[in-house]
């Protein structure tokens, strides 16, 4: 690991402060990036990572502090300024133009020209050379749209190399890549590092951060916590410095799984033989009052499909549903809402929050939908409901008038949860409520689920994190390959047991 304190810093940010209306997004933060290092920027959602990056790349103006690049003080007004100074950024949502060819995307703005006109052959040759330098061999004349996100990511990095960048910022580059693609990306990152490029890396995946980083800087609530050498920073210390509290928060919830559930009365919702051709084999599921039923299984195992059928978001072609022991016809979400069943989708951006509306409006939406649009929700009433849930779930910033799109993922999820809880449901179906959100928000949401179920709310909880399912649910339905393969009592259960069960159980039933 070529980490050496004596290497001259490429970038020195000192006392960076950025003020947003009502919030100090960054408060006197220092950050140093050296030649030939991979430096990870860590922090919860809303810690100020993105703001710091945007300050460095000229998207946001800084209110105070100084940025020095290669020893010279600089002020950037646009991303073009930053690029001219050798700072390039590759964002999570790859910012390229899918309507243009691969070669053009690499070379846009730097096309090879002869006598004032673009020389396309030379331009594509140049693009191919830059791609090959990163180990990518492809036809540069093909459209960008025909390549995977992973390849697009590498194309975006090649683009940064065209401008001879000395600093490469990678903002969550791995979140939509599979393991082998991550390996390829890391190969490229190491290669660039060895060539002397300074790399700023941001990721939620701890394993990846430790695998690739030489140094780690931690931010919390817009303030600098510290700069560490990756090799000398134990994981639990990193996590606690990020969240600023101990992980015991999560541990204390373990009692939830052991809680006794009274299953003598009729279940709140019971599905028998519910299925749909080509989507889900007929499955049974019942949820009793105050019970948390977890659904474990890999992505694509039929988890989401099952609950969508139960909620009426999709139509089943076999099976029956019973609510409190009485047969019920639930073929549209409306029917489900009328029976006090709420469903929070896994795709919160597309099927959940309304980004342009405020936090308060998003929360009240659920109540309004339940009442019907003709009956007004009184201002005083909605204010108190909104205040109650912002407080109960710890939505940050606690500003009801802020547009939801400006909140971090974890806080958007809390708003979504608040919307459904405000409708006072008897059963809430949560599909991946904690995916892609930070540890603190995750703990808040888990705590709330445990607390509400203890008071009688029934919950169906879907998560890819088996540990989380075991901790929260009393009973776990296990799914694989679009069918239910069994049910487990979660008390005393270990993650490995569930993984074994998913891997081995029910093999003999497969035709």
């Amino acid at each position: 690991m070529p980490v050496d304190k004596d290497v001259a810093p490429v970038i020195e940010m000192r006392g960076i402060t950025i003020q947003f209306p009502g919030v100090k997004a960054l408060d006197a933060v220092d950050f140093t990036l050296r030649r030939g290092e991979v430096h990870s920027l860590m922090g919860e959602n809303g810690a100020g990572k993105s703001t710091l990056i945007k300050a460095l790349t000229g998207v946001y103006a800084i209110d105070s502090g100084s940025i020095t690049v290669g020893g010279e003080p600089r002020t950037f007004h646009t991303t073009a300024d930053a690029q001219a100074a050798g700072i390039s950024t590759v964002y999570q949502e790859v910012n390229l133009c899918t309507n243009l060819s691969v070669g053009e995307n690499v070379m846009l703005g730097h096309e090879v020209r002869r006598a004032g006109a673009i020389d396309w052959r030379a331009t594509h040759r140049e693009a191919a050379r830059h791609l090959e330098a990163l180990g990518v061999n492809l036809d540069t004349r093909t459209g960008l749209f025909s390549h995977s996100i992973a390849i697009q990511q590498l194309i975006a990095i090649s683009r940064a190399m065209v401008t001879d960048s000395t600093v490469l910022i990678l903002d969550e580059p791995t979140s939509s890549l599979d393991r082998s693609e991550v390996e390829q990306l890391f190969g490229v990152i190491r290669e660039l590092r060895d060539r002397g490029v300074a790399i700023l890396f941001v990721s939620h995946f701890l394993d990846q951060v430790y695998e690739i980083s030489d140094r780690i800087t931690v931010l919390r609530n817009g303030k600098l916590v510290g700069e560490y050498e990756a090799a000398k920073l134990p994981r639990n210390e990193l996590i606690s410095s990020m969240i600023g509290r101990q992980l015991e928060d999560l541990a204390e919830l373990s009692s939830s799984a052991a809680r006794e559930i009274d299953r003598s009365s009729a279940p709140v919702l019971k599905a028998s033989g519910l299925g749909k051709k080509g989507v889900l084999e007929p499955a049974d599921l019942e949820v009793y009052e105050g019970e948390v039923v977890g659904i474990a299984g890999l992505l694509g195992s039929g988890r989401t499909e099952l609950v969508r059928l139960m909620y009426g978001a999709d139509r089943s072609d076999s099976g029956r549903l019973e609510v409190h022991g009485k047969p019920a016809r639930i073929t549209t979400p409306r029917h489900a809402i009328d029976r006090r069943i709420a469903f929070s989708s896994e795709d919160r951006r597309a099927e959940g929050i309304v980004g342009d509306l405020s936090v308060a409006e998003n929360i009240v939406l659920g109540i309004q939908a339940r009442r019907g649009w003709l009956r007004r929700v009184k201002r005083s009433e909605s204010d108190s409901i909104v205040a109650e849930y912002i407080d109960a779930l710890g939505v940050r910033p606690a500003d009801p008038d802020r547009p939801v799109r400006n909140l971090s993922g974890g806080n958007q999820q809390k708003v979504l949860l608040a919307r459904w809880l405000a409708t006072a449901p008897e059963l809430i179906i949560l599909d991946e409520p904690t995916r892609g959100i930070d540890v603190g928000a995750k703990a808040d949401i888990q705590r709330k689920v445990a607390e509400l179920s203890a008071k009688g709310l029934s919950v169906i909880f879907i998560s890819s994190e088996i540990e989380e399912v075991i901790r929260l649910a009393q009973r776990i339905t296990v799914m694989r390959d679009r069918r239910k393969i069994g049910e487990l009592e979660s008390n005393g259960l270990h993650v490995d047991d569930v993984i074994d069960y998913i891997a081995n159980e029910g093999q003999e039933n497969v035709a």
Partner: protein
Amino acid sequence: MTDLKTAATSPLSTVLGALNTFRSRHASWIPVFAAVLILVVMFGFAQWWFGNFLSLRLISALLLDNAYLLILAVGMTFVILTGGIDLSVGSVMAFTGILCASLVSQGVPAGVAVPLMIAAGAAIGLLIGVLVHYFDVQPFIASLVGMFLARGLAFLVSLRSIKVEDEWILALQSTRFKFGDFYITPTGIIALVVVVVGVLLLQFTRFGRTIYAIGGNEQSARLMGLPVVRTKILAYVISGVCAGLAGLVLTAYQGSGYPLNGSGAELDTIAAVVIGGTLLTGGSGYVIGSMIGVFVYGTIAILINFLGAEQSWKRIIVGGLLLVFVVVQRVIVTRSSRRT
């Protein structure tokens, strides 16, 4: 892309592979090919039906009668490629036309009047561009402002038609260069030069490629460090300049300026551009396509004349074609976005 995986090395898979490469490289040309196909089918049909339809004279007439539309379409292509729209072009053409006619009738030499009218077109384009970019006004609304403004200015110049007697301007239409049966006037040459300049600008300059990048994803273009502001405004200025030139060509063609000229021309222009395969969402399309679109449009008009049908059929056929093209474009867009 399952067809690549499943097929091994049979001749069929080679063909499929080649097809795939072709589609990946030239997807955006497919709508242009479709427009060419329609043009060929129409020519073929007319030739079969009338026997003596296709001739060099017809091609000449097609070009000269639609020269103004062709110029407008080139300018419009720039704007639509950025994802915008320019509704002002018809009115700007009328305004610059009547301005020119009025100036030369008062004795101003054409050498002064023509640059003035083109500058007037550019100024209105600049206004729209500034509104769109700095004031974040929808292109539809901003260019509607330009449309009303230019039409009002046209009426301010004159309420009636003004006859042009300047020899220089009349010569633009009356001079004929003959190549056998094919003939062309300076107005036709202007239109073709505009097409060539449009192609060169879009395909061979960084400015042109930035236009495509903005239409593909404006946010990306900005983050790539491309000069988005300048380019976007310039696209509207180009459209304004083209409208000014179209005003000149139309004035020469009609031998007069008339303030009611070109009402609805903006919609004809948009129709021609869309039929020529340019996506209204921006980022995909070609000037050559727009030229084909104009020819398709002109051919429909000629066909209706030949058939002796009501002119209203022209609108109906154009409407039908537009419907087909917009749906086809939608399918292409959703298919390519599904893949990413």
